């Protein structure tokens, strides 16, 4: 099971955190500090796994971002690397060549995508296309609602002019 997912920038800034096991705010801060210290310090040629407490952290660097997933001892580390890559590809498709700024300003979108990919720390969908389709459908629901709202508020605005 994936215990948590972290996105950390090369400067150690947190871009996304998703906790599938309960950690208090204090523990979260501690975990983040500990792990970013360990992972950011590792050289480029080393393996992508770090043993941490009773877990393992699988991380992979994409441009300026480190994608980290913390897993149980007997989980398949190589598969988790594939899951990370799967996630990155979906982000890439959604944002169109994703960059760190996309994830900063649209952090909620990144969360929505992650929620279509993982639930309860387990993999939900192995098809990138399906994820993209589900996200698009929900985005369009939001758009329609927004348009309706703005057209109503325009009407109100005009009526009260």
């Amino acid at each position: 099971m994936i215990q948590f997912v972290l996105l950390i920038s090369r400067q150690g800034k947190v871009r996304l955190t998703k906790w599938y096991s309960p950690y208090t705010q204090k523990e979260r801060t501690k975990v983040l500090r500990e792990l970013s210290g360990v992972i950011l310090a590792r050289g480029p040629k080393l393996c992508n796994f770090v043993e941490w407490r009773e877990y393992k952290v699988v991380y992979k660097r994409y441009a300026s971002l480190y994608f980290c997933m913390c897993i149980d001892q007997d989980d398949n580390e190589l598969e988790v690397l594939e899951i990370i890559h799967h996630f990155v590809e979906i982000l890439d498709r959604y944002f169109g060549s994703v960059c760190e700024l996309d994830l900063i300003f649209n952090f909620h979108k990144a969360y929505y995508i992650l929620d279509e990919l993982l639930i309860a720390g387990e993999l939900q969908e192995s098809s990138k296309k399906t994820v993209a389709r589900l996200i698009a459908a929900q985005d369009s629901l939001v758009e329609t609602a927004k348009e309706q709202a703005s057209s109503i508020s325009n009407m109100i605005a005009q009526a009260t002019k």
Partner: protein
Amino acid sequence: MNPFSSGTRLRDMIRAIRACKTAAEERGVVRKECAAIRAAINENDNDYRHRNLAKLMFIHMLGYPTHFGQMECLKLIASAGFPEKRIGYLGLMLLLDERQEVLMLVTNSLKQDLNHSNQYIVGLALCAMGNICSAEMARDLAPEVERLLQFRDPNIRKKAALCSIRIIKKVPELAENFINPAAALLREKHHGVLITGVQLCTELCKASEEALEYFRMKCTEGLVKTLKDLVNSPYAPEYDIAGITDPFLHIRLLKLLRVLGQGDEDASECMNDILAQVATKTESNKNAGNAILYECVATIMSIEDNGGLRVLAINILGRFLSNRDNNIRYVALNMLMRAITVDAQAVQRHRATILECVKDLDASIRKRALELVYVLVNESNVKPLTKELIDYLEVSDQDFKGDLTAKICSLVKKFSPEKIWYIDQMLKVLSEAGNFVKDEVWHAVIVVITNSPDLHGYAVRALYRALQTSADQETLVRVAVWCIGEYGDMLVNNIGMLDVEDPITVTESDAVDIIEIALKHHTSDLTTKAMALIALLKLSSRFPSCSERIKEIVVQYKGSLVLELQQRSIELNSIIAKHQNIRSTLVERMPTLDLLEWEEKQSGSIPNTTGSTPAHASINIPNGVAKPSSAPLVDLLDLNSDDVPAPSSSGGDSFHGLLDIDLSGAPKQSGVNHSPNNGTDALMDLLSTATPTQSRSAISDLLNSGQDNKTPVSPLEVLSSPSSNSIQPTSSAGAIDLLDSFATNSPIQENNGPAYPSVVAFESSNLRIGFNFSKLPGNPQTTIIKATFTNLSPSVYTDFIFQAAVPKFLQLHLEPASGNTLPASGNESITQTLRVTNSQHGKKSLVMRIRIAYKMNNKDVLEEGQINNFPQGL
């Protein structure tokens, strides 16, 4: 004007935060935003609620407190529209977790949304539930989720399946309800549903034996067929990764097959073919393929024996191990660890490669490899492997040395074929990484050396040489200092030369030099310095010619700011100056310590650690020297209660005695325990490191925990009744003289003060506790209570522990009990001394709450009570 652009937008806030140059500036911006959001919350602003929550999530991610926004999530979730719900659920998952009470409030909304007509809203609710639901919610909503496992849209079914995993983890007894719907998911074609269904089944198997049996019977064949179809499926662009169709599904299927095959021959038999196919056909040039192979190997290793498949699996691991990719090597090491229980021989074949991995640049790989090497070592290969590891110790990273040293020490101890080899290896480790060696390890080295009389000379000479080059390794210095103190004469005269040694020329003053250096070296800590002082004392007797010089060195510490050193210096100085006649007896060579007995003590089987262990610890800490805390008290007593033990023959005296880091503060202060002709007693006193501050507690610890001393009495009584112990009052004058600086204490204290009647403090059908009271003269506040526990039942009590608690105005100190086994029918009793200090003496009387735990016929019994019948005036 568009209302969506008024106020600061999310985007603007993020920009503003990013523009901040300092942390203080950022805090300022966040504070302003939070204030605005709080204001909006108070006004119950509806229009911007979702935007405010989005801002809060960002602020939360930066690590600021956002609890005030939790209720906003609930409001958004309760609103009707999809956009509000979407952001509301996201906020819920980010800002809350299962432990917050607020979460319960969402149960109702969740229930409604799980039944919503819009499938996306159902999806949101399932997702939130799967990620953060608590056990209580899981129980309430399980029927909804169960129903959704059959929902028409596959995307809901898959979410419901994962949500069920969470429910089962939280409430395992719900597992049975999910067995049938989960089995139905295994027949699906949709990959998402299939993958989640397989995961749900795996989880069910872990949670319930019944589920495991069911799936094993009904689904094994179907799963094998699904995997077969998947392996042979044509190119499917939607699921293709590096030429393989859906490696995720591959892996999940293999994992479930592993669970089903484990411990069941029929199921294992059924999956043999497909496992062989996966193991041989999967492409291993990409990560995805390797991930499948890795999972497949794990499954082969776990299911019931099939020789052919295992060979295949070990070969795959061998290939992995020689891969250039670090990730692959890492997982190979990881898996070999599991394979070793299955086929140790096959793993041994890769020993050389694994040993190389110990030296890898990558800390993760090194760690794995070291653990693997550790389990690979046996009697036949310990020498070459240890050599490799020790050689590597020289060049390894600082952070890795701790782990490596611990492993080497443990291996050398476990497999050493002969003592000389052990000593050699440990000396190498001490010289290379002495600072990483744990206390018990260097203690063990000394014990082994004392136990090998023919190697004393060899060891001390080797240590002397090592000290020349590695004087910065603290533990090496300690061992060397101790050995030079003990065997200095052998060092100087080259006694007991082995053939393999080169003779060295060391003069007596060289030996003193090196100890002096250790004593004065700036990195030496208190323990080392204290040990060096003792070593000097020993040398002063062994090398009469250096006696004057040693005295001068010792005297320098008379003014030391460290109490410990000052005290030792004064004591040792008076021995050197005034007691020539007994000195040589005092510093006789330490008797050998029984290795087995010592190891037992190390492993923690200390007889008298009943409810009062904290007392030991608190005594030991200020001393700073006696780190292994509980053993010494018991050890000391061996010395103490043997009437006239000849130093060379008393096998029971402890290693701590040997190291003279005991804390026998007592005799000095009581002043009754000295007898110049009783070598061991005096030795113990003289070498003790107790500080004057620890007084009474140490005495009673010391006396009460004696093995020969079955019915210990309160310290006072002990002091005043010498016959009950090995105390020889006639010699007290000598002792006072010996330690003139402490002679002010009157050695025998009167047992005075008013007498108090004894009471029966507690009586139940099984147990009676009697209290005897006495007071310390000149200290009316403190009462010494001697508790006597008597067993009234016909069964023996074991693991007897007495605990007591007192109100704040009292201070309670429990001494160790005389034992923890209480024989049946009041044949014998346990006694324990309590010291109670009443800060409100004269105003309030004593009161105490007690708890007694013991085992009767191997059953735990707990008794509790309150004692109010203390005599007045305590």
